[in-house]
C-alpha cells in the first residue's frame, strides 16, 4: 500500500477488499505490507520477493520505480503495479481511465445541479488528480454546456489527503459560491467534503470505492475505480496461470471504472439522468465518445 494507509475508505481499501475476496474465493493466503517511507519501497518488495511469493501487487503510482528495479533482480517473480505503467519482462501494469468514470459522474453532476455550478475537490495538485478533475469537467459540460466547474486542491503535502476539516471547508466555500454538487478525489479529506454536503443539504460524489452509503440521500453517486477488481483479477490470473506482463488499461469497457447506482442514491438519480448516462457509457465503451486524458497532453480541453 501507499503511505496513505490501508483504510482510507477509498483507494487502498479497495485493493484490500479485492485481495480479501480472492482469499475467500480460493483460500490462498497473501502477505501484506505498508510502507512508511521512500527507501522502504524497494526493501519491502525485495523482502516479499525473497520469500518466494508468486506474485506481488504494488498499489500506488509511487511504486513504479521500485518495482522496475526489484523486478529486474527477481526475474522469476511476477510483479504488478496498480496505477502506473512500469517496464519489465515480469511486470504487469494496471492503469485506469479515471477520466471515463469521472466523465460519467460529471454528467450526473451537470444534470443534477440546479445552479449549474459544480465543484471538484482534489487532494494534491498532481497529474493523476488533475485527470480526475478533467474527466469530470468534460462530463459536466457534456451534460449541459452552461455548467461551470469550480476546482480546488487541498494542500501541498501528503497531509492534504488526510485533512477532513479542510475538505469540509473547501466544500462549504464552493457551496457559498453557488455550487450544489461536488466531487472529491482526496482520500480521507473527502470525508469532510461529503459531510459538508450533507450538512449544507447539497450533493456530494464519492470516489474510488462506492461511498453512496456513507450519507444516504446526499451522495449523488460514486465514481468507482475498481482497484478491488483489478487486484482480484491479477491474483486470479496468477493462480490460473493466465498472468501476462504488459500494460493493462482498465476503462469503462474493462470494468475498471464505473459509476455507482444503488439503493442509497436511487432517489437522487432521475430516469432521464440514468438514461443519458447509460447512453454515454455505451458510447464511451463503443468509442463514440472520446474522453480526453489530462495526462496524455498535460492539458484539459475544458476549464
Amino acid at each position: 500500500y501507499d503511505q496513505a494507509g490501508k483504510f482510507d475508505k477509498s483507494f487502498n481499501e479497495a485493493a484490500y477488499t479485492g485481495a480479501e475476496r480472492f482469499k475467500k474465493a480460493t483460500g490462498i493466503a497473501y502477505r501484506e505490507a505498508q510502507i512508511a517511507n521512500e527507501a522502504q519501497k524497494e526493501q519491502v518488495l525485495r523482502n516479499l520477493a525473497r520469500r518466494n511469493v508468486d506474485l506481488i501487487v504494488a498499489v500506488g503510482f509511487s511504486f513504479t520505480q521500485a518495482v522496475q528495479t526489484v523486478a529486474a533482480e527477481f526475474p522469476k517473480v511476477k510483479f504488478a503495479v496498480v496505477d502506473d505503467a512500469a517496464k519489465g519482462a515480469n511486470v504487469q501494469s494496471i492503469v485506469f481511465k479515471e477520466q471515463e468514470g469521472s466523465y460519467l459522474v460529471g454528467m450526473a453532476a451537470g444534470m443534477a445541479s440546479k445552479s449549474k455550478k459544480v465543484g471538484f475537490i482534489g487532494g494534491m495538485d498532481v497529474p493523476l488528480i488533475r485527470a480526475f478533475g478533467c474527466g469530470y469537467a468534460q462530463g459536466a459540460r457534456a451534460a449541459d454546456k452552461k455548467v461551470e466547474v469550480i476546482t480546488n486542491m487541498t494542500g501541498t503535502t501528503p497531509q492534504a489527503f488526510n485533512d477532513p476539516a479542510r475538505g469540509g471547508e473547501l466544500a462549504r466555500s464552493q457551496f457559498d459560491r453557488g455550487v450544489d454538487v461536488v466531487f472529491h478525489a482526496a482520500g480521507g479529506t473527502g470525508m469532510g467534503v461529503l459531510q459538508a454536503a450533507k450538512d449544507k443539504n447539497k450533493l456530494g460524489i464519492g470516489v474510488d470505492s462506492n461511498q453512496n452509503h456513507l450519507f444516504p440521500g446526499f451522495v449523488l453517486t460514486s465514481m468507482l475505480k475498481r482497484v478491488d477488481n483489478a487486484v482480484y483479477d491479477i491474483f486470479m490470473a496468477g493462480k490460473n496461470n493466465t498472468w501476462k506482463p504488459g500494460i493493462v488499461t482498465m476503462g469503462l469497457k474493462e470494468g475498471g471504472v464505473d459509476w455507482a447506482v444503488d439503493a442509497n442514491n436511487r432517489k437522487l438519480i432521475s430516469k432521464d439522468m440514468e438514461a443519458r448516462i447509460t447512453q454515454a457509457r455505451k458510447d464511451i465503451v463503443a468509442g463514440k465518445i472520446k474522453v480526453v486524458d489530462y495526462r496524455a497532453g498535460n492539458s484539459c480541453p475544458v476549464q
Partner: protein
Amino acid sequence: MSQPSNLPRWATLWLMPVLNLFAALLVSGLVITLIGEDPVECLQLMINGAFGYPEGIGYTLFYTTSFIFTGLAVAAAFHAGLFNIGGEGQMYLAGLGVTLVCLGLDFLPGWVVIPLALLASMALGAAWAFIPGYLQAKRGSHIVVTTIMFNFIASALMTWLLVDKLIMPGSQTPATRLFAESAWIPMLHELAANLGIELPQTPLNATFFLALLALVLFYLMVWRSRWGYALRTVGLNEKAARYAGMPVSKVIIVAMCFSGALAGLAAVNELLGSTHRMNLAFTNGIGFVGIAVALMGRNHPFGILLSALLFGALTQGGLDLSFEKPAITHEMIILTQGLIILFCGALENLFQTPLALAFKQMTKR
C-alpha cells in the same frame, strides 16, 4: 541546572538513559499487550529486524545517516539558542539544489557532479535557513514561527516545481527523471564488492561516512574553535556575547545557515544515495525526527550518533515487525518513538531520586 546529585558519573551517563529506555519500552509493551500481541516477541522481532541480519543493518544505518544530518542541524541552531523546526523545508530545498545540478550537469563525470551537488544542497539548505535567521537576528521575528511557515512554503514551492516544471515528461508520477549513473553516490555493497566482500543490496551508501565525518567536524567546530565558542556564548548568554565583542546578529545568521546546510546533506543521502531522482515529499518527516534526535542526544555529536542509531533501528526494525505482525502498524512504531523521546528526553530525571536512594543504601552497607 539540575539538583546536585550524589550519583556516580557512570550512573548518570549510562544507567539512567538505559533505565529510561527500558521504561519507554515497558509502556509500549503494555499497549502491545492491550491489542493482543506478545511484547517480548515483538521486541525480539524488532531488534532482529534492525540488527539481526546484514540487510537490516544496512537499512538501519541508511536511516541513521539522514537522522545524523538533521539531528546535527537542529543541534547547531540550538547551541546558538535557536529552535530550528525548519529542517524539513531546508532539506526539501537542498533536494532542489541536488536535482538542478544533476538534471543540468549529470553528463559530466561523477567526481565533478557529486561535489557540485553536495555544494548545491548545502547552499540551498543554508539559503532557506538564512531568511528565518536573518529575520530573527535583525527583526526579532520568532524563529519557531518563521521556520514552521518556511516548511509550508517550501512544500508549496516544491509541489509546483515537481508537478509543473521538473516532472519527467510522460510520467504521471510527480518525480524527476532518473539522474545519470555517474551522479550516484556509490552504494556500500558496490564498494564492498570491489574489495571482494559481498554485502546485501541496501541503500546504505558512502554518505554514511560523510555523516560520521560531519559528527567529528561538528564536535571540533563547536567545542574547539573560536567560531563555536562564539556560537555557544551567544546561545547561552547574549549579554555576555555582546560584552565579549561578538557580532551577535552575524553569529545567529551564520548558525542558521550552518544548520540549514547540515539539514541539506540529508537530502544528498536520500537523493544521490538512494532514490536517484527527486519525488514529492522525499523528506518524509526526516527533518522532524532530527529534532527528537538532537534533543535526545543532548545536542552533542556522540549523543546524536547514538540517538540517530536508535531512531534508525526503530524505523527499520519497526517495518520488519509490522511485516511479521500485521496488527502492529506503522502507528504503533510512532507511538513507541514518542514514548522513547518522552522518557529519555524529557523525563531524564525520573529515576534520579530512587537511584540516589539506592546508592545511598548500597554505600551504607
